[in-house]
């Protein structure tokens, strides 16, 4: 090869390398300059499988929040990308890795306490910040080491409220029915602890599985022990079928449940058998227009009343967004900002303790009553 050709090849290669290096430098500068131009969040939800309906409800609530934020041209726009976890721990971790690879540092939901717990080491190691609307396992805040936050009272708080209520009513023996997954088991364990502390006897415990085809055996088990009340830590659609069976077998007992029994799922299955079911529900926003506006928007968009999942999905996006904007979308700064937040949400006031735990507000005590042809939740009176 003659020298001229050699010099030509070297020059071309040098130009190519130089162009590449310069473009990388320029892009990095652009990235730094444009850092908070859009707030990007990942949302890890079960969009198939047995709890897909709850994942879809959360997504609906989150989408409403995204649209609302983006409608305001003065706000920093937001983008939420959904990743399907199929409610499986390993899949959730894979999706989180995928989200991280695609540049997401803020995570607005890893649905499922088990799933969130499984992802925490990765989140801690890679500086991600997670805010959940539904994960209630009590030790998640401690295990999250500052990477995990939630806007739902943990199981211990919810269970304690219910046990306190039963104690005030003079109930001595209770039965507990729980769905045999991480959520149900967590609530059962906390309720059991709370009952022991308050000297309420847990006379009988029965587990159910998701979408159980018959509750005849479960109710027969409850009937085999004298109980004054039964606490239900199960999904509302299954809960409706269980309450229907309780009514059919004439098990005369008070029925207590958590806020997931609001909404239509339980009533559709139980019908009039739901009359008298008592719920402890976190007080919604004191600003009644916020809640009613949200409900109107949700009904307009999706044709159904919003469930607790939709409400928490909406609030989670809004909360994480506010924290992210205030901290320039830096995930580590966002963690500190979240702790200092004190804002009204649709589902209630949102604030955090020093350790990052969500401070539960007051609870409403509600009971299902018949109003005309329909069932409705009314304030419970002793």
């Amino acid at each position, binding site marked *: 090869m003659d020298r001229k050709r050699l010099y030509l090849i070297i020059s071309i290669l040098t130009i190519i390398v130089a162009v590449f290096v310069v473009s990388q430098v320029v892009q990095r500068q652009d990235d730094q300059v444009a850092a908070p131009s859009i707030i990007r969040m990942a949302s890890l939800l079960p969009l*198939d*499988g*047995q709890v*897909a*309906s709850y994942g*879809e409800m959360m997504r609906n609530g989150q989408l409403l929040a995204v649209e609302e934020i983006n409608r305001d041209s003065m706000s920093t726009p937001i983008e939420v990308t959904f990743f399907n976890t199929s409610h499986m721990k390993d899949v959730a971790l894979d999706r989180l890795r995928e989200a991280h690879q695609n540049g997401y540092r803020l995570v607005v939901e890893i649905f499922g306490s088990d799933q969130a717990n499984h992802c925490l080491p990765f989140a801690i190691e890679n500086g991600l910040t997670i805010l959940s609307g539904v994960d209630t396992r009590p030790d998640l805040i401690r295990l999250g080491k500052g990477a995990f936050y939630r806007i739902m009272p943990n199981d211990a708080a919810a269970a304690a409220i219910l046990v306190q209520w039963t104690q005030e009513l003079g109930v001595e023996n209770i039965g507990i029915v729980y769905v*045999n997954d991480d959520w149900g088991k967590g609530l059962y364990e906390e309720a059991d602890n709370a009952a022991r502390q308050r000297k309420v006897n847990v006379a009988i415990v*029965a*587990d*159910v*599985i998701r*979408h*159980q*085809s*018959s509750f*005849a*055996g*479960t109710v*027969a*088990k409850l009937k*085999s022990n004298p109980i004054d009340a039964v606490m239900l830590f199960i999904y509302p*659609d*299954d809960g*409706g*079928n269980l309450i*229907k069976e309780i*009514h*059919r*077998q*004439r098990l005369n007992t008070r029925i207590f449940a958590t806020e997931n029994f609001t909404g239509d*799922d339980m*009533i*559709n*299955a139980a*019908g*009039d058998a739901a009359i008298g079911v008592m719920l402890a529900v976190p007080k919604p926003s004191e600003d009644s227009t916020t809640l009613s506006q949200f409900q109107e928007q949700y009904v307009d968009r999706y044709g159904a009343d919003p469930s607790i999942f939709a409400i928490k999905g909406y609030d989670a996006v809004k909360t994480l967004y506010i924290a992210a904007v205030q901290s320039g979308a830096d995930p580590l700064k966002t963690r500190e900002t979240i702790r200092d937040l004190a804002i009204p949400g649709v589902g209630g006031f949102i604030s955090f303790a020093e350790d990052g735990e969500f401070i539960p507000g007051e609870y409403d005590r509600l009971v299902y009553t018949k109003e005309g042809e329909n069932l409705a939740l009314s304030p419970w009176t002793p």
Partner: protein
Amino acid sequence: MIYGVMRIIDFSHTDRMTIAAYLFADLNRPLGIYAAMAIACISAALLAVVTERGLFAGLRRRGYAVMMICSLGLSIILQSIMAITHGSMLRTGVIREYPLTNFLNLYPREIVLLFGVPLVILCLRRLLHNTYWGQSLRATIDDYEKAIVHRLPVARLTMIAFAISGILAGASGIAIIIGTGVYPQVGFKYLIFAFAACIVGGVGNIVGALLASLTIGILITAAEFYGSALAAEGVTLLVLVAVLVFAPNGVFGHGLRRI
């Protein structure tokens, strides 16, 4: 019956049950309960026939494994379609039921099933034993190749078997959605139980399958009462395995064939 004529488990059978359930739920309010029931059952039968004609008939020559895999694929497709059109939530509350206090707190649906199911079984037995088509169908089930040699209309008989199974699947779907509700994947759970009932009762033995179904139901309820709901379904399948090991022809395999 499908297993008898096809020698495969049709995984999509219980998905037709679910489709009929959703159809009934959608049509119940506008058309009334009886019209909705009729349309649901007929639709399930038509879907079964279309499946047989459109899918299995052409695949028979390719072997049983291919047919089973295709039926599994069809099942997943149907479940996905139902999930898209109806969502993944449990669909309940189609009809508000009230227990009849004078009848052991049974629901009207349960009373209909209590008397209706034996009646249907009896009619089916009559059909299979006392009619030309029934006897031809039994002959086809017993020996498909011989039926072809004897120039029985096997294609039509297979269609009849699918149609009858479709109607029964439709009726089952309606009973289930009124009772505890359905969701797109519910069919698979009931497929396992249905197959277990057939194996325990003896393949081809209708009365045996009925008795086995009752036994399985009692076992599940007893397991929920004495143990854990998580183990209830496993216990049932343990019984199935035990039967397969000790009595491969089923508990009533040959003994009740003449009933």
